[in-house]
């Protein structure tokens, strides 16, 4: 398989696809937007979490996408969760995270309306630690595919394609993604404990704690990987309301609960009738 490792996941391309440009794109985005690179622009912005700041055009573009996602999901998928993630113990690159530690207290997630972006000027009316992980990977997959022009790109569960692609899903099913984006949001991969209590990286903005959703993995198909990723996160955070929320937005979604039982949205069922998933 043709690929490399970046953003803490395996990035795969079709055999023979040129890697260099895509690899450079992923690494550049990782350096700019990671909380775990000391010299990243994100950490520079977070070092003074309140008031006005001037950011790069690329940072402004990505933050703008994150704010669009926050508006479209009613604040469920928000860039303002950085403080809550750190409070939950996710304060370093995942492979270096201690498996357990002292118990955590919930951290209030600021309203995304505390953030205003005008050009490259960012204003925060209260302290906000940003985390752009909710959009950076999905958007980078889309941008990488645009760079390739044709084919597909897959990065840690996030996929964008211009050609029919057979994709394996959580629990063993497979589907064909004809064109567009597919993303799976999961609470099973990046998990750790604090005070003996299981933690993961999907924060519920209402509680400031890792979500207690009944779903362990949610997969969504959308026009782009960025949108699929945002919708998958929102649907997981919404819990039992997730499937109908996706249907109201004409999105196909597949939900796996903590016992491995699969539920699908109406759109998914229309596209992949029960029993026809391989």
């Amino acid at each position, binding site marked *: 398989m043709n690929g490399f490792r970046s953003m803490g996941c395996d990035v795969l391309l079709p055999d023979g696809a040129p890697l260099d440009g895509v690899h450079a794109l992923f690494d550049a985005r990782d350096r700019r937007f990671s909380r775990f690179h000391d010299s990243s622009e994100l950490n520079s912005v977070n070092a003074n979490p309140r008031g006005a700041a001037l950011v790069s055009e690329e940072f402004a573009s*990505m933050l703008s*996408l994150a704010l*669009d996602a926050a508006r479209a999901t009613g604040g469920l998928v928000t860039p303002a969760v950085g403080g809550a993630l750190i409070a939950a113990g996710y304060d370093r690159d995942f492979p270096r995270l201690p498996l357990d530690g002292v118990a955590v207290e919930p951290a209030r997630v600021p309203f995304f309306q505390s953030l205003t972006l005008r050009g490259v000027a960012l204003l925060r009316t209260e302290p906000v630690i940003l985390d752009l992980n909710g959009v950076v990977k999905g958007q980078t997959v889309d941008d990488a595919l645009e760079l390739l022009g044709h084919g597909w790109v897959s990065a840690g569960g996030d996929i964008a394609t211009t050609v029919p692609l057979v994709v394996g899903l959580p629990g063993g099913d497979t589907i064909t993604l004809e064109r567009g984006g597919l993303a*799976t949001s999961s609470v099973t991969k990046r998990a750790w404990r604090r005070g003996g209590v299981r933690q993961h990286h999907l924060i519920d903005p209402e509680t400031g704690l890792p979500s207690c959703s009944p779903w362990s993995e949610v997969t969504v198909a959308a026009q782009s990987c960025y949108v699929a990723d945002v919708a998958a996160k929102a649907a997981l955070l919404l819990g039992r309301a997730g499937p109908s929320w996706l249907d109201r937005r004409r999105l196909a979604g597949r939900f796996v609960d903590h016992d491995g039982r699969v539920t699908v949205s109406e759109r998914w069922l229309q*596209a992949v009738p029960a029993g026809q998933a391989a």
Partner: protein
Amino acid sequence: MATPSRMQLARRRLKVARYSIGAVALSAFAAFGLVVRDAHPATHSTATTAVAPSTTNNDSSTFFGGSASISPAPQTVAPQTQSSGS
């Protein structure tokens, strides 16, 4: 004409320094006010950056744009990649 005393010279220098500090502080305050005013959502029709390819509205149906096309996979074809979450 009497030569100003060292005390008078010092007072003059102090006065000039006070005016200078005041002018710099006033300029900085005005500049900050302009930045804050420019950044405030009430002064604009949208609060999103001009450089971003964003949807710039709250209509979630526009944002989501409908599903990608998916179909059952052929029984005999192995997955080319996995969407297993991260």
